[in-house]
């Protein structure tokens, strides 16, 4: 993937979908955890990985999720996460290293409804397995209000 020329390239992230993190996500999303799923339907490695489990890359970023915004040069206090779009080609595997390749794909400006200019930065993430097979594509839109 080629990054937007006005933004620094973002580092690839290597991460693993772990059982303990799936338990945490389940609790955070008011769902049953993997332990219950395993009891119902079989080995841990075969239970469905949640659709948004790709957020686990945040744990492998030195500054967590908030560093995504600051790495883009956006002001954390004036920025919000506006939208996320996920495309699923293959499930994220449990317990194997996944590489997340990130880039800034688009930067747009528009007028906000309450006045002031908004900067909208689009970040694309490709999740690939150890054989470089594309698993999931994610797009995030970050919106910064004018100061």
């Amino acid at each position: 993937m080629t990054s937007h020329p006005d933004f620094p390239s973002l580092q690839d992230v290597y991460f693993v979908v772990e059982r303990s993190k799936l338990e945490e996500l389940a609790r955070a999303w008011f769902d049953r955890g993997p332990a219950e799923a395993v009891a119902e339907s079989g080995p841990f490695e075969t239970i469905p990985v949640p659709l948004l489990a790709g957020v686990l890359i945040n744990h492998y970023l030195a500054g967590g999720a908030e560093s995504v915004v600051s790495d883009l040069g956006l002001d954390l206090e004036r920025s919000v996460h506006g939208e996320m779009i996920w495309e699923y080609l293959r499930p994220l595997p449990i317990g194997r290293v996944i590489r997340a390749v990130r880039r800034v794909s688009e930067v747009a400006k528009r007028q906000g409804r309450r006045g002031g200019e908004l900067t909208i930065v689009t970040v694309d993430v490709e999740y690939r397995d150890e054989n470089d097979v594309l698993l999931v594509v994610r797009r995030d839109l970050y919106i910064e209000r004018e100061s």
Partner: protein
Amino acid sequence: VKFEPVRPLSALRVGDRMPDSRVGPITLSDIVRCAGATGDFNPIHHDAAVARGCGYPDVFSMGILQAGVIAVRLGRWVGVEPVRRLSLRFVAPVWVGDVICVSGKVTAVDAPQAMAEIGLYAARADGDIVVKGHASVSLRP
């Protein structure tokens, strides 16, 4: 979440509704739990002084909390593997004390392509929408 999954998926028709569900009232602990689970420790979501300093009346949940609630329920209804695309747009904050009501409805079925389109919403108890979403789901067995 106790959902009866749709079986078979090919039985989905326009107008079919995902079972409604509610979570909350959302507490600060729920937000902090989500921060820990998702690695999002932007203080605007758990430190009221920071939130007010940024012009908000109070802390509010990170979008991934309500996004995850929607996605989990969608996965329970149609399964995870059939979902080909999922978009979620955060249109309003979720505050501490809000109840999140999640709903979804089949908006289109393309029988030749064996695909269904599902509109997804999360709203506060007063009806104000906080997340608008859309999913494309394969109906192939």
